[in-house]
């Protein structure tokens, strides 16, 4: 498996090439370099997956392979390593990342056509891909943190890609600061973990674990805060909607499919620790996730910017994954068993399916924005005639996210809800409700874009048209994956086939045959269909009397939801009114007047003194000699009398 090194190396080289010499390359060449290197990475990832999953299981589980691992920074007994680790989830992530990234690379050819900084865009995409791949194959938590920050940087760079737009700059800054704030907790968690458990590695049976384990719940919760920041969990979600200021393909890659699931991946990576040492703390994950899922779904129902709707939908779906991880329970004697840890498999499964259909949705949204030059739903409506391919792929992805059988979202979401019901009926019903809301707002979005009243005025001025092949091809590929996986796993789930997702990724590594709980499957399907029907009833027509009446009935609720329940304002208040005004300003005053004052005094003193001393440097030899003899005299004096 030595070739796995190239999975990291190729995007990095293409980043260097495009970043340093991009200016002298034409758009076409730059794009081709980025895309081809990514295609090679994709091929390598698939090869890796094929080799990995076709290898024989050892003791019923897939072996964890470490093709590379070298000591990078030794620090006493601890050491930071860099390497590549292959286990089921990292291999699964390799596939997800490389697939979506390749699609985005191809798509960007059309979407970014003729943009200024095209080469820079591809360079950043390569950097991001490299960092994200490095994150998932990390052999230890510190390497993960390193690449974690790198994806943060590339996210910052790509959100602020249109750096002449003030909104983009503000959004990139916000994203960076919020995630950095969360990452601080992550770092503290890592340090606690390393200090007490004497290791940064992911081999959790190392010596010294048992005696340090009393600090593990603290460390894990701190790391979870970091993960929550990256995965936009409430209340650290505020950066993600604003991150939509970046180019849409970037939103699809970073802010829907890959980077934002890093938090989920982190928990999954440390899952054995959670289960063994901190099963109680998992309830924090559940409640944060459950609340975020509901909150984001509620906000998504009221947004008018299509990318914002998708952003909140992403938050909600990631929260699903979080909840799924949180509802896992240790089996007998804290071992991980298939029943208690069903959520783990469900979460990873949903991560996989969500990445595909959400990327498809975002790319579809990109096509639409490309066509009508606006993010607002009011500029759309009735687009199905103009953009048939986008329409169909978008519809299929909406069905998938809504959880309709035979589409990929159904299988994974159903597993999540089953796991939730195993944990507690309250959580189960709650998440079912959120799933229904998901179906509702996604179809509200769908009808708002493709049906409803056409904005004739705008469209007469500029007729919408279908996107070029480079943009529709990725949509089709992703849709095919969504449908293919959906059909295969749905049938597999009902008929209890092996070889479904559960055969590859499970919490304890053993083969698990996905089978649906009939009750849960039927309930959630029925509820999803009802929600879709409701959305159809309200939003499909040219006139929307029900919707108007609902605005009239609950104007305040709508405004609150539209304003995202004023979370940003709360942040503004806390940061500006309390932290800046009450804490930072006095500190700044202290810094400016006391600390700086002290150094100013030193500088002033030195300056004044040197002006005095300068007179000694007269250049007159006789004066020097005078001082010289004086010095000799003093020395003699001191020798004689002291």
């Amino acid at each position, binding site marked *: 498996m030595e070739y796995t090194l190239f999975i990291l190396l190729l995007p990095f080289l293409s980043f260097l090439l495009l970043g340093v010499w991009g200016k002298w390359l034409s758009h076409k060449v730059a794009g081709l370099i980025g895309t081809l290197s990514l295609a090679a990475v994709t091929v390598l990832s698939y090869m890796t997956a094929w080799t990995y999953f076709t290898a024989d299981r050892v003791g019923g589980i897939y072996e964890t392979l470490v093709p590379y691992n070298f000591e990078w920074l030794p620090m006493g007994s601890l050491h930071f390593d860099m390497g590549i680790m292959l286990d089921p989830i990292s291999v699964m992530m390799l596939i997800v990342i490389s697939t979506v990234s390749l699609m985005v690379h191809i798509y960007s050819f059309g979407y970014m056509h003729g943009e200024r900084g095209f080469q820079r865009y591809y360079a950043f995409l390569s950097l991001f891909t490299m960092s994200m791949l490095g994150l998932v194959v990390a052999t230890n938590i510190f390497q993960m943190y390193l690449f974690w920050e790198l994806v943060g940087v590339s996210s910052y760079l790509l959100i602020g890609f249109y750096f002449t737009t003030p909104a983009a700059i503000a959004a990139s800054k916000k994203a960076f600061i919020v995630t950095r704030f969360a990452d601080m907790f992550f770092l503290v968690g890592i340090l606690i973990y390393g200090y007490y458990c004497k290791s940064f590695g992911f081999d959790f049976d190392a010596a010294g674990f048992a005696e340090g384990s009393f600090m593990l719940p603290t460390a894990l919760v701190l790391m979870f805060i970091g993960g929550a920041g990256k995965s936009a969990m409430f209340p650290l979600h505020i950066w993600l909607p604003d991150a939509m200021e970046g180019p849409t393909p970037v939103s699809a890659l970073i802010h829907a499919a890959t980077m934002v699931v890093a938090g989920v991946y982190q928990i999954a990576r440390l899952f054995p620790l959670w289960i063994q040492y901190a099963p109680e703390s998992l309830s924090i994950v559940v409640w944060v996730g459950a609340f975020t899922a509901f909150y984001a779904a509620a906000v998504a129902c009221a947004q008018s910017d299509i990318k914002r709707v998708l952003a909140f939908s992403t938050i909600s779906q990631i929260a699903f994954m979080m909840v799924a991880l949180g509802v896992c329970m240790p089996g007998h004697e804290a071992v991980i068993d298939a029943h208690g840890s069903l959520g783990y498999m469900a979460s990873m499964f949903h991560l996989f399916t969500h990445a595909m259909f959400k990327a498809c949705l975002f790319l579809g949204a990109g096509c639409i924005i490309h066509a009508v030059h606006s993010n607002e739903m009011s500029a759309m409506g009735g687009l199905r005639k103009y953009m048939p391919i986008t329409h169909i792929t978008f519809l299929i992805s909406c069905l998938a996210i809504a959880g309709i059988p035979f589409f990929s979202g159904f299988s994974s979401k159903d597993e999540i809800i089953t796991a939730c019901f195993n944990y507690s009926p309250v959580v189960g019903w709650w998440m079912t409700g959120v799933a229904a809301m998901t179906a509702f707002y996604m179809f509200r979005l769908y009808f708002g874009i493709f049906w409803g009243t056409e904005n004739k005025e705008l469209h007469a001025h500029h007729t919408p048209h279908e996107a070029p092949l480079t943009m529709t091809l990725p949509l089709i590929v992703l849709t095919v994956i969504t449908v293919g996986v959906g059909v295969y796993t749905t049938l597999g789930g009902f008929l209890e086939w092996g070889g479904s997702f559960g055969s590859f990724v499970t919490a304890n590594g053993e083969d698990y045959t996905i089978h649906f709980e009939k009750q849960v499957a039927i309930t959630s399907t029925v509820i999803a269909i009802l929600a879709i029907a409701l959305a159809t009833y309200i939003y499909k027509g040219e006139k929307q009397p029900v919707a108007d009446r609902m605005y009239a009935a609950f104007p305040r609720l709508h405004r609150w939801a539209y304003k995202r329940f004023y979370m940003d304002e709360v942040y503004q208040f806390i940061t500006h009114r309390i932290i800046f005004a009450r804490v930072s300003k006095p500190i700044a005053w202290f810094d400016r007047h006391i600390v700086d004052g002290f150094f100013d005094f030193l500088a002033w003193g030195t300056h004044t003194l040197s002006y005095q001393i300068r007179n000694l440097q007269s250049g007159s030899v006789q004066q020097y000699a005078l001082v010289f*003899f004086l010095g000799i005299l003093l020395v003699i004096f001191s020798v004689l009398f002291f």
Partner: protein
Amino acid sequence: MIHIEYILIISAVMMFAGIYGFLTRRSTLAILLSIELMLNSADINFAVFNRMLFPEGHEGYLFSLFTIAIAAAESAVAIAIMINLYRMFTSIGVEKLKNMKW
């Protein structure tokens, strides 16, 4: 009854006279004269130590000899410099020589 101290006092007076001259003279040639004064006082000390403390040895004696030779060499070069200076500034005043400032 000539004590060694008496001769040392003479050389000390000569030495400090030289220092005073070195510090106050404004002509570089006069400064050179003061330096000769100081060198000479050192010579006397060498000779007198040899004569009174180690009458059998000749180290101080030879040091005095060498010092005289070196003083001659030194004044030859110094005077060459003075003459050159005089050509440049038409003066050998020490106040012209401020280049050590930089």
